[in-house]
């Protein structure tokens, strides 16, 4: 230990100090908003606005959470979101991987044509109305399939995964395996997939986050409230208490509504992001590895 310290020159030590200092500052910058949202969700909004809430909650209250959880639709929303995220992720990741693997293999005929077709979709989309009509004509409206199927297999993801396969599964491996009598399918299941855990984790995280946070598709395609995902339910709770501009005709307590809105605003953020905050640390190590490999070695 002593030796280690000695080997550092004065400059090195300063470098370290400044480094740690800056990193700490940055970490605080990132952490504080999260922390603030947490304490704000327990504080009296009047104190938040007069700037008195800073390090600790002031005027402690659970009104916001009470409001949020008193609504049974939130549990339905949770259940729906979990279903959509699980199912959507399964479908999405499967489609992505099944598309990416063949495209990563040199012997696939017409590879460039297929790739070209895929790429076109990245630049041109049908737009909202044609998409809506398509979903309608497929009779997917007001079903969960409208959320999980149309977006499955994003081209961007396919490219990331394909690049990963190309760079980390050498052709020699397939040659060796096939000499030993391994079939394509077996090679894929027993060799490629186990070697690709990191990229799979990345894909899972992408998809889960996407489905968890997504509400626009649900908004457009779903009519039935019992099918709403969590985000839409939370948005409704928040919006319901928002003060509307129709005050001229609507004689009601603006202030009381304001207060509740402020309270549940923070509560809603906590409720909706908690599952992802919990999930992230477990996937984080794959995440860094996977994306790096996928992107840098082309």
């Amino acid at each position: 230990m002593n030796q280690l310290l000695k080997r550092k020159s004065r400059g090195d030590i300063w470098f370290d100090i400044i480094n740690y200092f800056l990193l700490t500052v940055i970490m605080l910058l990132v952490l504080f908003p999260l922390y603030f949202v947490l304490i704000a969700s327990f504080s009296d909004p009047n104190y938040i606005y007069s700037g008195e809430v800073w390090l600790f909650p002031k005027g402690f209250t659970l009104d916001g959470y009470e409001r949020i959880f008193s609504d049974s639709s939130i549990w339905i929303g949770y259940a729906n979101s979990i279903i959509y995220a699980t199912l959507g992720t399964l479908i999405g990741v499967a489609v992505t991987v099944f598309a990416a693997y063949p495209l990563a293999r040199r012997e696939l005929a017409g590879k460039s044509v297929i790739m070209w077709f895929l790429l076109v979709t990245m630049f041109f989309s049908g737009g909202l109305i044609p998409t809506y009509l398509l979903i309608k004509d497929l009779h997917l409206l007001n079903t969960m399939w409208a959320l999980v199927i149309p977006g499955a297999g994003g081209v961007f993801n396919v490219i990331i995964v394909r690049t990963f396969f190309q760079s980390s599964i050498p052709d020699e491996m397939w040659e060796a395996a096939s000499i030993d009598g391994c079939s394509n399918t077996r090679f894929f299941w027993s060799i490629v997939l186990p070697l690709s855990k990191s990229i799979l984790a990345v894909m899972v995280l992408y998809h889960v986050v996407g489905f968890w946070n997504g509400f626009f598709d649900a908004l457009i395609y779903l009519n039935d409230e019992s099918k709403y995902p969590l985000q839409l339910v939370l948005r409704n709770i928040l919006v319901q208490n928002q003060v509307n501009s129709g005050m001229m005709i609507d004689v009601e307590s603006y202030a009381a509504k304001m207060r509740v809105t402020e309270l549940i605003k923070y509560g809603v953020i906590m409720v909706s992001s908690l599952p992802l905050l919990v999930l992230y640390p477990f996937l984080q190590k794959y995440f860094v590895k996977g994306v790096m490999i996928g992107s840098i070695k082309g």
Partner: protein
Amino acid sequence: MKSLFKGAGIVMLAGAFAVSGCSGNGNGANNQSGNQNQEANFNQTGLPIVKEAVTLRMVSPKAALAPEFPEMEIFKRLEKDTNVKINWENIPDTDYTEKKNLLLASGDLPDAFYAAGFTDYELINYGKDGTIIPLEDLIDQYAPNLKALLDRRPDIKSSITAPDGHIYGLPSYEENNLGTNPFFHVINKAWLDKLGLKVPQTLDEYTEALLAFKTQDPNGNGKQDEIPLSFMHMQWCMDIAGLFGAFGLPDNLEHRVVRDGKVIFTATQPEYKEALNYFHEKWYKQGLIDPESFTQDAAQYLAKGKTTDETLGSYIWWEVEEVVGTERSKDYVLLSPLKGPKGDQIIGRANGGGPGRGAFVITKENSNPEITMRWIDQQYEPYMAAQIHWGPLDVVFKKDENGKLVNLPLPEGASAGEFRQKVAPGAGGPGVITIQDLGKIVDLEPRAQQRAKDLEQYYDPYMEKENYPNIFFEPEELDKINKIEPELIKYVNTQRGRFIVDGGADKGWDSYLKTLDKMGLNELMEIYQTGLDRYNANLKK
């Protein structure tokens, strides 16, 4: 490999057929039986409207946490009475505009849009291309309640009639006159008493009071933390526009007033300039205006009335309690319009406030327009209209001995506004409650009654007679207004803030007028004048 694909294809096709088969069947069967028996099934008058149940598909927004309409008591009763079943598609009101546009653009049309919130633009354009149908003939034949209302109230008829003479959307209106003056001016009476001042009657007395608030520490905490006057720049019910009246020409948020049938743009008038000079010299320079007045949002504003030490001297908001809380509210009193330097004492009248006109539209896809019209006409019967707007009998109201609807006590822990959302389609719904109906057929909720009393006592005697009604413009006129007005008003308001804060209204006035001229002020005022003339002409018809 090939056979595998074939297999998959067949399975998928079969699946698709199965899906389409199911949902297709239901609709088709319903429609057909509806068409065949239509004539025999339909009752021209009386209830039920149809002998055998008919289903209509309607799209409607609803308050986000309200139950879907089929679960609302009021619609259950309506279905039982009329035998018309509504297949509701409810959309949370905040997402409604988006989804409505999507449905209209994709041609995925329901039979009708309920509480439709169609803008003038949409009414005219979709009326012109036939997406929604003109309703005046249907009203004549099948809507006795609505027809009676329109005969009785030509102003309502005039304001829902499109410039092309058709009626495309039905009205929604709660005529309570509560919006005539939103600027309730409040002052801290407890402080006035403490400082030995009387309640100000003139602008100068008021200025004195503000100055005393600032300098003499009326809350007695030894700090100069009093805020003499706080408001929110150019916001509904919290702006100082009402105070401009002391100079003879009251302002409103549009800077547009009407006198003797002539439209006046206030923000270019000498009285307006005089007011700005006064507010800068006497108020801002002496630190009597809360500098945050120009930037704060409602939450910040409301928090100011609830600080640990009482700090708010005077403010503008249309309910005392909301800003300072019930406990402190006894310290505060309302001020009538203040007498200006030349003895003017007047307050403006808010513009618009007439009936909404896009509350119900029928689309071209509707094969039962008569049934639909008869169904919606039920809701223009005054008692029903009240229930649609505020909530059903036995839930929100009971009938008293005179047959008037009076409010039942609210359920424990519910606020009136929230409860209302859950039991009724609400303010945007079809139905008209006229001022004559209030007090005779239905009572306003208690808070609204209080506000009506305050208005009568403090403001009505000083109020402008005319306002700019809610006029149905031609699309070309709307285009021009939309092109000119937002920028212009934004400029005017920025300048207003600047003149109050930095002063210099005298020096900057000419270039200010010139800029407005360049931005198309004259053209804009012409359009408004034309619209007003047309409206008045329609009224006399």
